[in-house]
């Protein structure tokens, strides 16, 4: 008689791998290019207050919940939610769909990072100067009107079209980079968590190292302290604005990467008796600490850049004055500039006025911040040109961004592959390596749409609408599902079984009341703000009158329809699955052990506190 053997569930080599993977998943590009920006626009140090409150009362409880159910139920997201209640299986499917969609566009961003990385091995850096125009009589017009870094990003990297409706042709160089990026993801995931667990030793620790190097370097450059002071000087008035609280809550929520199913997948490979409460605190605190540390590094560099821009502005004025009044070369310096201006204003004010000197204000330059791809590919690349040894800094920066993104990609891919493997959705004769390859290949083929001329606009669409409302809904359903459908008593017993102690009053009150309420408020507020106006997007249109400013255009109706689809289709399973089960099994309900697992069957009862006596 033939026997079928159960494959033993893979597990982590050691606890460090598991922690590094979870931290790597949580710490992503948003920590580097979203948090510093929020800190800056929302009153510096004062923003930390709503941020930390959201972390403690919303982020940590949700994180604890996901890690606990993954570790207890030892299944990926779909299996885990089926275990909790057959009606809640839709949550797992929703997580998987969201993970899949997010991984597609997230990898495109990594492809852009790779492109910049490839281009950093040149002297001079290609974004430091404008190319000549066709006749070689002057510089390229589009580049002259905007800046070389803008031109390199919009024209030479993306070759972007003027609006989202014009698709343009495929940009083969971006497709090559996407292929490379997917191959890197594949090779790290080829043996499941065995290979990925080794990759995270590098991808999770390297960014912190680079941030330290940047910080050390930046502190020796002039202007770094200006940037830091500007970033952290608190503006307490800003706390009265409710948008600050909303943004803090959404930032911590998206930063911790809950709702993707990746955390459930990773903790399912743990040993059963593992202190997940301590893991939660570690992951949550390290995530926020990395955000803070990254903002210090980034802002010291941005302070240097602002100072440089300020000095160039003043130098231009100095040259105008020197040439017009034929003052000896270098008599007017940056230090005595103001004295000279006053003196010249007294002696010949009309001449000075005719020169049309630029007003140079350091704060205006410090205000020119950006978030997202704008920070990485425009602002930071400009700063890097002015640092001595630009190539080294550019290479380091882009490797860091790639590591940050890659470790987050592991979580997304894990959220897709683990349910596939657990539910045996593919025939068992297909080895895991082939399944992983098929998933990567399909994702790559779909991601080709982001390699078109309008690709950047589509990435923005996906980023704003797939990675936001569906996740909030999933997380809300998760917490309701565990606390009220599985039951808090059962969950407390699970935690006792795993960690040896029941969760204390803080966690219980958060799970029962505070976190669901906060999540609900955030969700409703977010939807209302999105729905208030027809969504617009910034387009790079060289024919715009106010070019080089971006033109704000409304999304056309067919794109709007796609937006609605992207926001609702991932969460449809949450509603459809219980409906399907009700119709199929009627009022009698699904058979009790519809999905028995090796750990959850009627074999024997787990000893809990209640049954001890």
């Amino acid at each position, binding site marked *: *008689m033939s*026997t*079928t*053997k*159960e494959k033993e569930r893979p597990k982590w080599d050691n606890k460090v791998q598991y922690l590094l993977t979870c931290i790597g998943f949580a710490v992503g590009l948003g920590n580097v290019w979203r948090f510093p920006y929020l800190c800056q626009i929302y009153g510096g140090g004062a923003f930390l207050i709503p941020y930390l409150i959201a972390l403690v009362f919303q982020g940590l409880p949700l994180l604890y919940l996901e890690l606990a159910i993954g570790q207890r139920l030892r299944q990926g997201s779909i299996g885990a939610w089926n275990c909790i209640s057959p009606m809640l299986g839709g949550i797992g499917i929703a997580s998987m769909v969201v993970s899949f969609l997010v991984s597609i566009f997230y990898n495109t961003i990594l492809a852009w990072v790779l*492109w910049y*990385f*490839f*281009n950093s*091995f*040149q002297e*001079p850096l290609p974004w430091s*100067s404008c*190319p*000549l125009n066709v006749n*070689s*009589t*002057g*510089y390229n017009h589009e580049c002259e009107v905007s800046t070389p870094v803008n031109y390199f990003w919009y024209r030479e990297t993306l070759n972007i079209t003027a609006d989202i409706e014009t698709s343009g042709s495929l940009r083969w*160089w971006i497709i*090559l*980079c996407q292929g*490379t990026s997917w*191959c*890197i993801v*594949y*090779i790290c995931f*080829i*043996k499941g968590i065995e*290979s990925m667990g080794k990759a995270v030793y590098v991808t999770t620790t390297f960014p912190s190292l680079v941030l330290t190097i940047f910080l050390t370097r930046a502190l020796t450059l002039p202007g770094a302290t200006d940037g830091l002071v500007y970033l952290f000087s608190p503006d307490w008035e800003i706390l009265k604005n409710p948008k600050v609280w909303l943004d803090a809550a959404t930032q911590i929520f998206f930063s911790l990467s809950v709702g993707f199913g990746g955390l459930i997948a990773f903790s399912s490979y743990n040993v059963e008796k593992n202190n997940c409460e301590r893991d939660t605190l570690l992951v949550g605190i390290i995530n926020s600490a990395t955000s803070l540390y990254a903002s210090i590094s980034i802002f010291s560099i941005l302070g240097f850049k602002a100072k440089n821009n300020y000095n160039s502005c003043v130098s231009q004025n100095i040259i105008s004055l*020197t*040439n017009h009044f*034929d*003052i*000896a*070369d*270098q008599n007017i310096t940056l230090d005595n500039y103001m004295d000279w201006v006053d003196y010249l204003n007294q002696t010949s004010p009309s001449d000075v006025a005719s020169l049309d000197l630029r007003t140079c204000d350091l704060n205006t330059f410090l205000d020119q911040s950006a978030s997202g791809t704008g920070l990485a590919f425009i602002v930071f690349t400009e700063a890097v040109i002015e640092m001595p040894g630009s190539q080294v800094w550019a290479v380091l920066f882009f490797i860091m961004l790639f590591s940050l993104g890659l470790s987050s990609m592991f979580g997304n891919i894990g959220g897709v592959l683990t349910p596939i493997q657990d539910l045996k959705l593919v025939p068992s004769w297909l*080895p895991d*390596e082939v399944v992983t390859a098929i998933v990567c290949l399909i994702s790559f083929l779909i991601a080709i749409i982001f390699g078109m001329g309008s690709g950047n606009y589509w990435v923005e669409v996906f980023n704003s609408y797939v990675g936001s409302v569906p996740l909030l809904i999933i997380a809300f359903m998760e917490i309701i599902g565990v606390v009220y459908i599985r039951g808090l008593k059962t969950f407390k017993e699970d935690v006792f079984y795993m960690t040896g102690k029941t969760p204390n009053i803080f966690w219980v009150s958060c799970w029962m009341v505070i976190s669901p309420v906060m999540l609900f408020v955030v969700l409703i507020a977010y939807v209302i703000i999105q729905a208030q106006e027809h969504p617009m997007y910034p387009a790079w249109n060289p024919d715009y009158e106010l070019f080089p400013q971006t033109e704000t255009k409304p999304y056309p109706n067919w794109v709007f329809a796609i937006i609605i689809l992207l926001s609702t289709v991932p969460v449809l399973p949450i509603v459809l699955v219980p409906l399907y089960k009700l119709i199929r099994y009627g009022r009698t309900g699904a058979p009790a052990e519809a999905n*028995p*697992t*090796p*750990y959850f*069957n009627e*074999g*024997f009862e787990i000893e809990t506190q209640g049954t001890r006596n």
Partner: protein
Amino acid sequence: MWKNTFFLFFILSACAEELCKPDASNGYKVRLSLKTALGDDAYTWNKNEMFLFQSTLAFAMRTSHTGQSYEISNIVVCNETDRVSFWFVVTSPGNPTELVENYIVEEAIRKSRHRINSAFLLTDKTLEFVGILPTLATPVSYDTPPWLIVFGVLMGIIVAGIIVLLASSIVKRKRKTRRTDEEEADEETRVKTMDNGVYNMSFSVEDKLTQM
């Protein structure tokens, strides 16, 4: 006779000064930024440097405007300031009262710009001829773009790595199936799984030692 010579010279220089004035029709303004270019190594601008300028420019005119032998006296300079900036005009060698057209002067300067710059250890930016734009430096161009080279190296490493890892897992799998085929031969006590049943972890597998 000497008196006449002196008188003529005086007239000529007076005329020359008349020819050279700021915003002269065929004249150009020159601006030097010595401290910006050379920092502490900057030399002071004096009559000798001016002499060098006049001779360099005469050289440029000779090279470009073939057939004409320009002398230093043909380069007339005026309005020197502390900046250091001054105006100059070029007079024709045949007729010292006639100015050379500015397009001829411009062409001469463009042709020998690099030589003029080098004579003063300056660059296009620090030795400005106001009105004559320097030709832009052609950007560096490569036969193969460097990014393709880096891409090729990285892809090569990755593909090699994928092949190695896949090959190693195929070899491991073959070894495992060979071993399990041997193990299945003496399997009697293992818990059999059925279609609806489940491999139950509650019981541990019977140890081989307890085989009867």
